[in-house]
C-alpha cells in the first residue's frame, strides 16, 4: 500500500496534467495552476523540515566539538540573528511583532533585517558570484590547452568569438572590403554563435526533451520507481 498509493497518484495526476496540456476547457485549464498551488502549500510546510535539519546538524557538530565546529556556530548564529530581527521588526513593508522599529530604523537607516540583508548578505553573495570570473579564466585555460585536433579547433573558435566581441575585432578586420564582410571578425563571431552553436544547443535540447518524455512516461506508468526509494 505504501508503494502502490504513490504510484496510483503519479499515474492519475500525470495523466490529467498531460491531458490538460491539450484541453483548454474548464476544469483542465485550471488543473496545472491548482496543482502548483498545492505544491506551494506542501513546500511551505516542508520549510520547517529544512530548518529542523539545519539546526539539528549544526547543533550536533557544535555540541560534539567536531572538526571545524566554529563554522557551524557562525552559521547557526547568522540564522538566529536574521530570524530574530525579521520576527521582531519585520522587513521592508511588513511589520514585525514589535512593529516597524522606528527608533532602530532611524539609527541604522533601514530595518535591522534589511540592514543586514543589504550590508552583509548582498555583498557576500556578490563576492561569491564574482569568483566566477576567475573560475572561468582557469577553466578556459585548461580547455584551450592544445592537446589534439578538437582542442585546437576549440581554441581557434574561442579566440574568434572572444576577439569578435571586443572593439579589437572591429579594428583588426575593419579594413576588409564589402565583399569580404563575412570574414570580418565580429561577423564571424556572430556566425559561430548563431549557427554552429545554436545548432549544437538545439540538438541537446531536443534529446533532453525526448529524455523528459521517456522519463515522465516511465514514472506515469510506474515502471520507474527509484524516486520512491526502490524498484519493487
Amino acid at each position: 500500500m505504501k508503494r502502490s498509493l504513490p504510484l496510483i497518484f503519479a499515474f492519475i495526476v500525470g495523466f490529467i496534467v498531460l491531458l490538460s496540456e491539450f484541453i483548454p476547457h474548464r476544469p483542465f485549464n485550471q488543473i496545472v495552476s491548482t496543482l502548483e498551488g498545492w505544491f506551494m502549500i506542501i513546500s511551505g510546510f516542508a520549510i520547517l523540515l529544512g530548518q529542523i535539519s539545519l539546526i539539528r546538524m549544526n547543533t550536533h557538530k557544535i555540541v560534539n566539538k567536531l572538526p571545524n565546529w566554529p563554522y557551524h556556530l557562525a552559521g547557526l548564529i547568522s540564522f538566529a540573528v536574521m530570524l530574530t530581527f525579521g520576527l521582531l521588526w519585520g522587513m521592508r513593508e511588513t511589520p514585525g511583532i514589535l512593529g516597524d522599529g522606528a527608533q532602530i530604523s532611524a539609527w541604522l537607516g533601514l530595518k535591522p533585517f534589511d540592514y543586514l540583508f543589504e550590508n552583509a548578505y548582498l555583498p557576500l553573495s556578490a563576492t561569491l558570484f564574482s569568483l566566477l570570473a576567475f573560475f572561468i579564466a582557469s577553466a578556459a585555460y585548461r580547455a584551450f590547452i592544445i592537446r589534439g585536433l578538437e582542442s585546437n579547433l576549440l581554441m581557434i573558435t574561442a579566440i574568434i568569438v572572444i576577439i569578435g566581441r571586443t572593439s579589437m575585432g572591429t579594428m583588426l578586420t575593419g579594413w576588409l572590403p564589402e565583399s569580404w564582410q563575412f570574414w570580418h571578425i565580429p561577423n564571424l563571431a556572430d556566425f559561430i554563435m548563431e549557427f554552429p552553436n545554436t545548432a549544437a544547443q538545439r540538438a541537446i535540447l531536443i534529446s533532453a526533451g525526448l529524455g523528459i518524455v521517456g522519463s515522465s512516461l516511465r514514472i506515469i506508468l510506474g515502471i520507474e520507481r527509484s524516486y520512491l526509494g526502490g524498484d519493487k
Partner: protein
Amino acid sequence: MRKCILIIFFTVIITVLMANRFEASDTAWDDGKSIDLNWELSPLIEKVVISRSDAEGNLKVIHSSEASTSTYRDNELEPNQKYHYQLQAFSKGDSLSLAASATTKQQWFYMGKLGFLILLVMVCVAIIYYIQSAKHGKEYFIRRIAGLDSMEEAIGRATEKGKPILYVPGISDLDDIQTIASLTILSHLAERSAEYSTDIIVPCRFSMVLSAAREVVREAYLKAGKPDAYREDNIFYLTDDQFGFVAGIDGIMMREQPAANFFMGSFYAESLILAETGFATGAIQTAGTAQAHQLPFFVVTCDYTLIGEELFAASAYLSKDPQQLGSLRGHDFGKVVFIILIIVGVILEILGISNLKEFIAGAIT
C-alpha cells in the same frame, strides 16, 4: 433617371459599408480568454483607437494604432462573457465610430498543439512498444554511457581513500524533472555506496528535495541490507539561497575532501563554481544536466559528463531492467523521427513550402 440615382446611392452606401468594417470574434481553439478584432477602414484613416466597455458601460482604451487595416487580439479575458468594443477612426478633420461585440468560448482542444500531440503520441507509442517487446524477452543493444560506468570507479576510489562521496541533486525543487531524474540516480549510487560502506553526503537546497532524498537513500540502504549504516544527518538542508548553497558545498568540498563528487540535476550560474572547486580538491567528478548553457563548464571541469538525455536515461541504464532499457530504445526512435522531420523540413523550406514548419510551430507558439 430615378433608377439610376437609386443605383448610384446604394452603390455608395455599400462601398462605404464595405470600406469601413469592424468585427469581433472569439479566438478559435483557445481557452476562452481572448477575442480577435479585425477592421478594414478607408485608406484616408490615419489613426485607430479601440476601446472595450466594462460592466458599467465605461470605455477603456485597449489599443491604438496608425494602420487603417489591421487586427488585434484582446487577451486575458474571462471565458463565456460577452464583450463590447468600440472602434474610433480618425482622419483629417473627421472621425468615425464603429461597434462590435463577441462572446468568449472555451474550446475542448488546442488545435495549434495538434503537431505536438501527434509527435508525443508517436514517441509514447514507440516507448510502450519497446517496453512490451523487452518484457517479452527481446534484448536491445544500449550504447555505453561512460559517465554512468564511472560510478563504480568513483565509489571504489572513495572506498580506498576512506573518504565520503558528495552528491548534489541540482538546485531546483522537486517540481523539476531533472531533480526527479537526479534522485533516481541517487538511489542507485546510495545502494552501491552502502554495499561498500562508504558515506554519501547529500546537501539539499529545498526541503522537499531533502525529504525525498532521505527517503531514497534510506530505502537504498535497506535494499543493500545495511539499514544500520544509514545516517540521516548526511542528507541535510543547507539554504534556499543559490550562492549560499554553493558556498556551503564549496566549504564541504574543502573541509571533507570527498573522493568523488556527483553534480546531477538542474544547475545554473553556480555550476562552474562548484565543479572548479571540486577539481581543485582532486576529486573524481561526474556531472549531468539538461541545461545546455552549463554543459561546457561541466565538460571542462569534470571527468565525466552526462549530456542532456543521458541524465534521464541514467536510471534505466543503471537498473539494467529490460523494461526500462526498452524505453531507451523508444528515445532512439524519437530521435530518428526528429532527424527525418528536420531533413524534410529543410528540403521543404528550400522549395518554399512552409506548411510543415507552420504545423509544428503551432505547438510552440
